[in-house]
């Protein structure tokens, strides 16, 4: 390591158990906006970032959150192989000051691998609030590595942590050799494995002592490796020692070693940690409400509904406008609608479109830009404020620790349809926009549950579909209008629940798996940190803009050509002559069963086709094709009856996810099969639901 003393660039890794505040600290160190969540294990991929400190360039590697190095999950394997590879010049192990006894276990295991360790105690300010006092110097002296208290909330200790890591990287601090724990009565067995391995020392890449311990614990990967390097007989001899230990102590060696490590940890921390009487949290009574059978779910749903009422009102004016309207305050109602964020943004985009056409004159190019790209991209951007508001609320719930408790409270009801309590957050997000909802399923531990949710979440009507429902509702007399809105949501959630249930039953029959499981850490309730919340909001907005924006941008161009170019490839002003109209005529028999006449059916089919790209464009298309100024007029001109409107609404709510959602389903599931299955399933169910609605409303 003598040459690295002059090196100007170092690689420093960060590991820690889930929920110790690793992602937050990584963000602070690198200024990178990575996702921070209260869900254990949300950081699946490895993040890298760079920073400068004291004239050194530091490459920071954020490894996945892991509990230890024993079970060899994918995340643990990634972290272990990386640390053993010798690439990191120092490893920062983060320990939760609120739970040092538990979260330090990882640090002990890491110390058995390498001496180039710095231990950071996160949430050090919160520890004080909880009456926990830690003697960092004492722990540092006992372990022989730097121990630094940090706080993501106040940024205290962040620089000291980096400096300590640099010292370790430059060989000025840290242990020269890995930590050696006394395993007591197990020692003779450990040393016999050690002495066997010692004969092959030159050819083995890892520390002998560490290998001996891991082999005794039953590390299959390492066992295969040793078998390869040292041969069959050596491997068998090690296996024999393992069996011997099991026989002597009547326990799995892995369990024995883990127990010894915890004993060692208790010795290290014992008198180094002082706990004053922990104040019973102010929120104790409140949080316990969530665990109660009936009150819990009701409270959770009330919070979510309240949140959405506020978010919807800010964004579209709904439902406040309808409420004001029914109270006779028509002026106030239309003001709420006009000055909602959605209304204002719509104005802005139409102003930009007009400005472009007025300034550069009317040509096919300005029309493409103004009516194709700007209105297309604008229709997506309109949802950005809503997504930001909803993710702001969700971030507050998550960071404060309320969200995991809501998941617990709703686990019971949700497991009836085969999903765990985790599913509530993607479901909630779906009401705003399906795209971030599909992304939010990442926090769900069970892969099969996650795939099921990806297929079914698009059933939940997003804001775009709400816009369509509201437009349809506005063409009915007010009582019926409100009923239509309710109908849309009830049908959608019924479809969501039923399909989930059926898929779950099928899966259960095939794999024999039992009820959905919940394992969730419930972090202490605390005041949410502004910084962390902003990262959340920015992260989901960024994802949304990137994933939806690029696709919508490309598709708005394609769509514009489809509407403005005739099959003979000449530009046309009349949409009825366009390529898209040709498609629509072909598809129009779809709506014959609900009694829409063929001469008008193609207009509806065309709107549905456009709705595949962006749902809210259904209304716009109907008005353009009928040559009217509003949805009411368009629907009137089409002469749709109440049963036809109702069944069409149901169809539009269910029929297919928008193209941006499909793109995300594909990129998250990495399966064409799943993506196509989603379309087929939704189309089928939407069609059946449409026919049922039509039939029922005719009878009524």
């Amino acid at each position, binding site marked *: 390591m003598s040459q690295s003393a002059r090196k100007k660039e170092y690689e420093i890794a960060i590991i820690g158990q889930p929920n110790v505040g690793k992602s937050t600290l990584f963000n602070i160190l690198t200024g990178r906006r990575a996702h921070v969540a209260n869900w254990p294990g949300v950081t699946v991929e490895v993040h890298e970032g760079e920073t400068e400190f004291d004239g050194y360039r530091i490459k920071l590697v954020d490894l996945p959150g892991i*509990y230890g190095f024993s079970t060899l999950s994918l995340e643990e394997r990634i972290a272990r192989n990386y640390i053993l590879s010798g690439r990191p010049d120092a490893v920062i192990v983060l320990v939760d000051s*609120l739970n040092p006894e538990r979260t330090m276990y990882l640090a002990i295991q890491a110390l058995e691998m390498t001496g180039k360790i710095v231990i950071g105690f996160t949430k050090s300010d919160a520890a004080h609030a909880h009456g926990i006092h830690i003697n960092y110097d004492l722990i540092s002296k006992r372990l022989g590595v730097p121990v630094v208290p940090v706080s993501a909330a106040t940024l205290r200790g962040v620089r000291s942590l980096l400096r300590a890591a640099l010292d370790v990287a430059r060989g000025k601090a840290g242990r020269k050799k890995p930590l050696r724990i006394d395993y007591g009565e197990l020692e003779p067995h450990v040393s016999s494995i050690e002495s066997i391995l010692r004969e092959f020392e030159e050819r083995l890449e890892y520390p002998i002592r560490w290998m001996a311990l891991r082999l005794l614990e039953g590390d299959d990967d390492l066992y295969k490796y040793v078998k390869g390097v040292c041969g069959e007989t050596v491997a068998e001899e090690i296996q024999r020692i393992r069996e011997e230990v099991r026989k002597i102590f009547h326990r799995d060696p892995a369990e024995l070693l883990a127990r010894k490590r915890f004993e060692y940890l208790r010795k290290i921390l014992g008198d180094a940690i002082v706990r004053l009487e922990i104040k019973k949290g102010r929120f104790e009574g409140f949080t*316990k409400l969530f*665990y109660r059978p009936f009150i819990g779910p009701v409270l959770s749903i009330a919070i979510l509904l309240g949140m959405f009422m506020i978010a919807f009102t800010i964004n579209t004016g709904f439902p406040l406008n309808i409420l004001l309207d029914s109270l006779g305050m028509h002026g106030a109602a239309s003001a709420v609608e006009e000055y909602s964020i959605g209304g204002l943004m719509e104005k802005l985009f139409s102003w930009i479109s007009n400005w472009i056409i007025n300034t550069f004159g009317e040509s096919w190019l300005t029309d493409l830009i103004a009516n194709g790209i700007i209105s297309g991209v604008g229709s997506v951007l309109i949802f950005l404020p809503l997504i930001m508001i909803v993710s702001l609320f969700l971030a507050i719930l998550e960071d404060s620790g309320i969200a995991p408790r809501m998941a617990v*409270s709703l*686990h019971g009801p949700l497991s009836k349809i085969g999903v765990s309590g985790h599913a509530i957050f993607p479901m909630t997000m779906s009401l705003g926009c399906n795209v971030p909802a599909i992304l939010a399923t990442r926090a769900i531990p069970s892969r099969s549950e996650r795939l099921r949710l990806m297929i079914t979440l698009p059933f939940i009507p997003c804001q775009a579909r709400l816009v369509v429902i509201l437009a349809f509702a506005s063409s009915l007399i007010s009582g019926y209008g409100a009923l239509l809105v309710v109908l849309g949501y009830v049908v959608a959630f019924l479809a969501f629940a039923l399909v989930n249930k059926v898929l779950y039953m099928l899966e259960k029959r095939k794999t024999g798996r039992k*009820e959905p*499981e*919940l394992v969730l850490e419930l972090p*202490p309730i605390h005041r949410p940190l502004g910084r962390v919340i902003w990262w959340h909001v920015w992260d989901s907005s960024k994802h949304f803009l990137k994933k939806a924006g690029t696709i919508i941008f490309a598709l708005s161009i394609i769509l514009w050509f489809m509407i403005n170019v005739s099959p003979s490839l000449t530009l046309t002003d009349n949409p009825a002559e366009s390529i898209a109209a040709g498609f629509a005529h072909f598809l129009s028999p779809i709506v014959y069963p609900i009694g829409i006449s063929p001469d008008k059916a193609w207009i509806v089919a065309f709107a549905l086709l456009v709705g595949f790209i962006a749902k809210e464009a259904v209304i716009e298309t109907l008005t353009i094709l009928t040559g009217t100024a509003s949805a009411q007029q368009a629907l009137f001109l089409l002469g749709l009856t109440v049963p036809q409107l109702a069944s069409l609404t149901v169809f539009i709510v269910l029929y297919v996810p928008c193209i941006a959602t499909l793109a995300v389903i594909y990129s998250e599931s990495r399966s064409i099969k799943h993506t196509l299955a989603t379309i087929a399933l939704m189309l089928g169910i939407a069609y059946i639901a449409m026919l049922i609605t039509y039939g029922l409303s005719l009878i009524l």
Partner: protein
Amino acid sequence: MGLTPGVVVDVVMNIGRGPIIIRVMGVEIALGRGIARRIIVEPIST
């Protein structure tokens, strides 16, 4: 999650058929019934 052999577990909440809430080394953890059933405990005096 700190549920190691010999650890002391407090039951915070155990109502009906919902998840059981326990406290292990100072942290609350919610466990579904299926998983909770597979954890073997013996009562100790408080």
